[in-house]
């Protein structure tokens, strides 16, 4: 039984909120206590490996399926369908009626969200022209290329100017040019005030676009917060090149330091760079170059998701 909450939206409230959501399919737990809060007007990434529970979480947040337990609140409403007119959704498995002309398909998707058909057609024509598909407006979907059909569906997702846009793996199947266009479109919608949630297993997109992310692994949220907070989970990496190959300075390196070509690579020790530098200089390393790199989101993702998956597996074995 879901806990009753007030259906009141406010400017400070998160656009989307999930509290301890659980979803079971028969004996399989697909989502295991997911909690997250998506600030209004932000671009929010849902990251995780395949099968982590990202799509199921999004489907629950959109009201396509109900959770087995837990609470969800979307644009201030506990029943997501009540906010359907303010939401746009691009599912992972794209689908359009193949015989429907492109502009009709876009207008139809708008009509589903409460946009009058005539206005939908007008906006569809404008959007198709804007995205270089003007001449395809009256052509049936089945005659469009896969990329064009994906663009049409994406335009159908935003035709009614939603406050919340949910995109499930939006970059999959797109070439590099269309991926860049999509990133631009997402930024444009966010600039216009929309909240955007997208799921992906390609970290680069999240790194470029997102302010906040949730990393999901094994149906659980392994991390939820700002991108730089995720990066901060890992220690900076030191890349060191020396003139001397032996000497007391070697004792200053951590035990986990490894050689990559003519460099030593290791995590920056707890004490920070100053004690390390001092020990290297005093030990006669003859430093040629020393670089301290901030870890990327990819490294953070691999570490967080990998650890979470490993922990989940260990827990399953323990059971």
């Amino acid at each position, binding site marked *: 039984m879901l806990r009753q909450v007030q259906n009141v939206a406010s400017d400070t409230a998160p656009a989307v909120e999930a509290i301890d959501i659980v979803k079971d399919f028969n004996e399989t737990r697909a989502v295991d206590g997911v909690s997250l809060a998506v600030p209004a007007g932000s671009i929010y990434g849902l990251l995780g490996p395949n099968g982590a529970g990202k799509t199921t979480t999004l489907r629950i947040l959109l009201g396509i399926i109900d959770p087995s337990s837990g609470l969800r609140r979307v644009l201030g409403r506990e029943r997501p369908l009540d906010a*359907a007119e303010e939401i746009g959704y691009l599912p992972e498995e794209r689908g359009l009626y193949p015989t429907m002309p492109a502009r009709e398909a876009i207008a139809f998707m708008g009509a589903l969200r409460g946009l009058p058909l005539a206005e939908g057609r007008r906006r569809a024509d404008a959007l198709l022209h804007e995205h270089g598909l003007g001449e395809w407006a009256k052509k049936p979907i089945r005659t469009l290329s896969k990329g064009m059909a994906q663009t049409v569906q994406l335009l159908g997702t935003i035709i009614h100017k939603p406050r919340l846009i949910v995109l499930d793996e939006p970059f999959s199947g797109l070439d590099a040019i269309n991926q860049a266009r999509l990133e631009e479109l997402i930024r444009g919608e966010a600039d216009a005030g929309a909240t955007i949630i997208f799921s992906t297993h390609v970290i680069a997109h999240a790194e470029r676009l997102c302010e906040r992310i949730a990393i999901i692994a094994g149906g659980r949220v392994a991390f939820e917060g700002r991108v730089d907070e995720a990066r901060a989970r890992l220690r900076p990496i030191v890349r060191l090149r020396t003139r001397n190959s032996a000497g007391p300075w070697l004792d200053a390196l951590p035990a986990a330091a490894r050689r990559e070509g003519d460099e030593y690579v290791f995590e920056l020790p707890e004490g920070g760079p100053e004690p390390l530098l001092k020990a290297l200089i005093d030990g006669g390393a003859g430093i040629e170059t020393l670089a301290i790199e901030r870890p990327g989101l990819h490294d953070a993702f691999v570490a967080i998701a990998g650890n979470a998956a490993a922990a989940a597996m260990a827990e399953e074995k323990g059971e």
Partner: protein
Amino acid sequence: MRQFIRGAFVIARRDFAATVLSKAFILFLLTPLFPLLLGGLFGGIGARVAAQTETPVVAVIASQGEFARLLRSRDQLAPALGRDSLVRLVGYELEADADGQRRRLLASRDPPLRAVLSEGFGEPRLVGSLDSSAIEQVRLILGTARSESLPAIRVTNVQASSGSLDRQRAITAQVSQMLLFFLTILLSGMLLSQLIEEKSNKIIEVIAASVPIDALFVGKLCAMLAASVLGILVWIGGGALLIQLVKHGGVATLPPPAVGWPAFLVLAIAYFATNYLLLGAAFLTIGAQAATVREVQTLSMPLTFAQVLLFGFASTAVGAANSPEGIAAAVFPLSSPMAMIARAAEEPGLWPHLFALAWQALWVAIILRLGAQLFRKTVLKSGPRRTWWRLRRA
């Protein structure tokens, strides 16, 4: 509610346009022509073959005057006995070798003679291989020919006697029930595969996130009902025109129903709608569970038989609307429209129909609600994990 109605309308509009504006819909409108054409073709051939092989041909060896009287007599009896089933007569002049002539005629294949009638009106003799019915026909023709004319009767037609009215109304009940059954079986089957398109092209996810699943079901059902009604209007128009052309007096000569033609026609439309919606809702629910067209095809056969059973159950109401079976057929939701249209033909009074229509509408809503819940649970994989038996065990 506003969201529900809007969603259902958007779905219905899309489905109706996709159905009616397709080339396949023209073929659909021509559907009744195929059985008519086939019936006409095979019926014509069958009738011709039957006429050639079954109507006995009798050779009459007589003078021209006697033969003419026999032909007149046959013409007088034809309306009562049926012109096509009455023995045909072919006249021959008497030859010198009467026995030889009879043998030759019996051996004739053109025309294929079955018997020879000879030796005049006084002591007529029939030789051949006729059955007793044909022999009686020959006897009647001879008898009428002897008396020259049939007695005249003064006839006064009244609109209907109570006996004829009951029979006519029973015919109207049967015909209307049959029409309702055939139209529904022809049209509601389409609903089995209605959700396959959305499921196979994955747009179901977008729809399920935008409108309640109940609205999707209602929209689809209403769209197909509207397309079916459009088809039926075309067919009824064509049918009425055909009856007007073929039958003397046109549609006005059809047996009158107990509630009168205007009310009956309104009820017929209403009961078609509820019958279609009831069976359609059930079909939509069942078809929605199918993942492929193959599964839908497999399902269609048992469902057709189920419809035939319902028709059989509803037909118990014909001539016995107030019997326990008739009332049971009227109460059972899926047979109720067919039972009630028979009642409209045979029993006056409109109140039972208002109750029946409300009852049927309630069941449409119940089936759709259950269907949508089942769809959410089994196809969209929604709903809580625990099933009822687990809850009971817990």
